[in-house]
């Protein structure tokens, strides 16, 4: 929009302290600031005893222009200068009547939300505490709903469960496979640089096998699922909150946790361990490629060495971990979704928060498992 001056202020004459201004052209939103500053300067410069403003030559006036004229009148009156508009057209009168002068002077009903550092720390602490309470409450809700589902399997929405199994599991296979393969490849390549110096090439297979099955397989899969599925759960339930779909469920007497969260959590509990096995397999495959192509090992030797270090127990431990990660990821995704209040921005923060919280919980829980498995 143009900001050029499209109006002129013509001082028609001065008589006994009275100043006659004639306005012509267009006074509109684009040049409001120019008009205000120019008229301000004129009043200061001429210090009139009375100000008469002729509007007969005005071609166009929009609501912002009308605001400018009324502001001019207010400023003149504030300086105790008698003021008068002359030759006001019907249209200009109608536009000026749209400007509610009381509204201009009205203070905002809600103050701007500013707080000092103490308040911010207090609010932050309260938020963390409330968040903790909310997570624990939801966890209780979820466990109750899961228990109910085990006791009443017909109450579970199996169609939804299959749908989420496909979304969280089948559709995640390519990315989990690719990342795990490259991870196995990198571990094998980096470790081979060191182990080759000692002639211990064969231990590359052991290293990759143990690392993938015990730690990297479950953790990498969980992190990928958190990014793909946890965020999707949060966004889906969050949008349902915004659209009042969750309220509708409650109003119809459904338990939203049982209706929305249980199929997702159960699907994740099935999908994530399977994805973990898949990840282990592809990780070892990545190591195998380095072993065969870079370390002159045969496929048979590599697989034999890998199988000698991997036990069924270690695989089961990995699967147990991944099942727990699945509950954490899907649970926190659903909980963050249910927390949404407001609009699109709240859905965005819930999604981010679901992923960050899930990854944090995955790492913390993995540390706990590491200690637990060492002493058991």
């Amino acid at each position: 929009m143009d900001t050029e001056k499209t109006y002129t202020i013509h001082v028609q004459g001065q008589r006994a302290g009275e100043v006659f201004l004639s306005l012509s052209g267009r006074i509109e939103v684009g040049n409001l600031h120019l008009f205000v500053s120019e008229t301000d300067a004129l009043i200061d410069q001429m210090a009139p005893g009375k100000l008469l403003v002729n509007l007969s030559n005005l071609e166009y006036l929009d609501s912002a222009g009308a605001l400018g004229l009324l502001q001019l009148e207010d400023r003149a009156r504030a300086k105790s200068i008698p003021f008068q508009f002359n030759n006001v057209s019907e249209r200009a009168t109608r536009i000026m009547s749209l400007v509610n002068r009381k509204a201009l002077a009205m203070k905002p009903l809600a103050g701007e939300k500013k707080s000092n550092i103490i308040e911010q720390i207090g609010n932050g602490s309260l938020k963390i505490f409330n968040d903790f309470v909310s997570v624990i409450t939801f966890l209780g809700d979820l466990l109750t709903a899961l228990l109910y589902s085990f006791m009443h399997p017909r109450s579970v929405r199996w169609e939804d469960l299959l749908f989420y199994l496909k979304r969280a599991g089948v559709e995640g296979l390519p990315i989990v496979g690719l990342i795990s393969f490259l991870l196995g490849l990198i571990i094998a390549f980096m470790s081979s640089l060191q182990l080759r110096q000692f002639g211990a090439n064969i231990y590359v297979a052991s290293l990759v096998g143990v690392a993938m099955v015990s730690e990297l397989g479950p953790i990498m899969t969980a992190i990928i699922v958190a990014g793909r599925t946890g965020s999707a759960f949060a966004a889906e339930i969050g949008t349902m909150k915004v659209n009042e779909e969750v309220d509708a469920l409650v109003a119809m007497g459904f338990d939203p946790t049982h209706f929305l969260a249980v199929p997702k959590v159960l699907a994740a509990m099935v999908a994530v361990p399977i994805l973990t096995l898949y990840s282990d397999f592809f990780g070892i495959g990545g190591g195998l490629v380095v072993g065969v192509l870079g370390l002159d090992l045969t496929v048979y030797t590599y697989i034999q060495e890998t199988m000698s270090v991997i036990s069924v127990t270690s695989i089961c431990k990995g699967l147990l971990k991944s099942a727990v990660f699945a509950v954490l990821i899907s649970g926190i995704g659903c909980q963050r979704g249910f927390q949404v209040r407001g609009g699109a921005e709240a859905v965005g923060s819930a999604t981010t928060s679901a992923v960050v919280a899930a990854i944090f919980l995955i790492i913390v829980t993995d540390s706990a498992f590491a200690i637990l498995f060492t002493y058991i």
Partner: protein
Amino acid sequence: MERLGRKPIIVVENLTARFGSDTILQNVNFEVYEGEIFVILGGSGCGKSTLMKHMIGLYETESGKVVIQGIDMTKADERQLKQIRLDIGVAFQSGGLFGSMTLAENVALPLQEYTDLSPETINLVVKMKLGMVNLAGYENHLPEELSGGMKKRAGLARAMALDPTVLFFDEPSAGLDPITSAELDSLIKSIRAGIGTTMVIVTHELQSIFNIADRIIMLDKEAKGIIAEGDPRWLKDNSTDPRVKAFFNRKVLEQERQET
């Protein structure tokens, strides 16, 4: 300065709109004249909002033309579209306000983007616009803190931020109680009277139509186009089309029942 001229400001010619294989509108023709309140009317699913979205260039047309201020929206390049969009305002059914911004920030957005006004002047214009729609004092409120009617009015204030030549308003009365709806109608009329804005309004609320419309077109789902055009009062009393009669009479009966 004329209020109700006969100069067409929008010309729709042979507009055909499709969603996939479904034809929603077929060969629709009409004109909107400068300064009039033009209402697009019809039952649910007849393509009222679709027509409006085609008119403002949100949807691509299958064929036909939508000419606003001499520019064909269906063939306009980005620069022309931007130029036209500066000259039109759109108020959406649920307000279309940005949830993360306060009302003041929502209304200030077009002023910040398209003018060089100082923050103080923008603040003043925002206050004026909010005052115009009876939302003075709500500058720092977030949209989620407002009722449906207030959101619509705030959306109207934002759409009117630059005093557009044409204002499109989707379902101003939907979801509002009769009093709030009547207030919004009088607000629409006062804005037209004050600024002379041409209004294109999509609605199916009969009371609202009789309150505000200078001229209407009635769309029909089966006909995939316009089945009546003209002054709503005249059409109510004189139309011989059974669909038009049924629409007006059914609504009148409903209103009478509500009133009793």
